[in-house]
């Protein structure tokens, strides 16, 4: 049976975000350059890690679930500086 798959953008638009000005997660593209596993790219449920043509990683913190998957999986010391967003900012689940 066919299921109409929705675009990732539409998928993320079902979630509320109070985007803060501070990037609560930062990724050092230089370090990612020498990363061969790229586990973050597939595992991040919000699809926030995008490989660039020059071998780095483009990272966008804005629609982050704050789950912790990326910092736990990334095996390159220092590639990810991870924190929770400031109080009240970030994702809000209406169902959960």
């Amino acid at each position, binding site marked *: *049976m066919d299921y109409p798959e929705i675009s990732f953008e539409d998928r993320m638009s079902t*979630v509320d975000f109070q985007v803060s000005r501070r990037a609560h997660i930062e990724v050092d593209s230089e370090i990612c350059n020498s990363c061969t596993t790229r586990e973050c790219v597939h595992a991040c449920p919000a699809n926030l890690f995008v490989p660039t043509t020059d071998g780095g990683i483009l990272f966008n913190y804005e629609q982050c679930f704050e789950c912790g*998957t990326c910092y736990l999986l990334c095996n390159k010391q220092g590639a990810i500086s*991870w924190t929770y967003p400031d109080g009240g900012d970030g994702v809000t689940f*209406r*169902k959960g």
Partner: protein
Amino acid sequence: MSEHAGPAATTAQATEKATTFDVVVVGAGPAGSAAALELARRGHHVALVERGAFPGAKNVYGGVIYGRILDELIPNWWEEAPIERWVTRRQTMLMTPTQSLTVDFRTENWGKPPYNGATAHRAKFDAWLASKAEEAGAELITSTVVTGLLTENGRIVGVRTDRPDGDLRARIVIACDGVNSFLAKQAGMYPDGQVHHTTLGVKETLALPRETIEERFGVSGTDGVDIELVGGTRGIAGGGFLYTNLDSVSVGVVLSLTELGKAKVRPEELIADLKRHPAIAPLVKGGELIEYAAHLIPEGGYNTMPKLTGDGILVTGDAAAMCLAAGIWLEGVNFAIGSGMYAGRAAAEALSKNTTDLSGYERMLHESFVLADHRKLKGAPELLLGDRVQNKYPAMICDLVENLFQVTNPAPKPGLRKLFRRGAKQHGIRLRDLAKDAITGFRAYG
């Protein structure tokens, strides 16, 4: 010191300027609210600090809350808790991409007080439980991140928050900050290797009309269904679930982090797989996606728990890896409520006796289901996340049943023993391993 909560956060020296409480509870999930409620009821001055705009805002789960522990905390909770449906039908489904075998159980007993399990949304449930703590006198402080522990002479004496002048002093800190627990990590209580026993849960909530749900799932009124799925995750250790809410269903997958990282497949594709599966598609067809969500689950159980008590600190719930995830079970909320409640009691005991001895907490946990269940099932996570149970057995059992039910005449029916041997061989299962797993299974679950 880091001014944000994360893996790199460090402890800070306490300063004079700070609001003082008897106890600061960090995180208003089920564990935190239960702890704060117990303390407030006993007349203690307790702060319940939550980083979300409201309790539940940051929280995600599959969708079933088991009520027995609530009886002790809030008698007749079912008359007021924000429940969607009472689970009266429970299924476990073994699946391969094209097959499924379901054990289907239903009972009227679970549809009346005191009720066994209920589906609920965390945004509502967590907010409700926190409101009980507030009514009892706890001070709920939302939109506030606890960024680190305050120490004095090596002892924990409160927390720092991201509010200006946001230090909160307390005789005891209860860490109810969930699966990433930066507080337990900062206090040096966490063992290494978290990534190896943590799973990622990803879920879609799909809106469906109430009547459609009743028809498809064969329930009426506020009765509901809980389906646990084994297999069907393209070989990634984990599983899936499908639960009914009042006018939506929750469908999701639970995936071993390390295997997901290597699998080169994205989590939402695995949910799409499930939704296309011949056994699931008719149930979710036409459902409109109303929320996509993800959260980590500590699945390692007893052997992976951190230290539970320290000098001035107690660790509860997911922060202490107390989620029971053993294939046919996915229960964390009841363990969080239980451990939070006992932490609150132990803290109250220590305060009233004016001691710093918090060992009452572990004693209460060992005497109750919280650690008894975990101790008993400590072998289960390893067995269940192994390749045979995850992949080979579901496929072998589905084939076995397919062959058993397939009418083969004019060839005579094959004997069960023969089918069994053939199936095991076909799926590369040595009978020796099967026997070994069966024994481990009986030990783990017995």
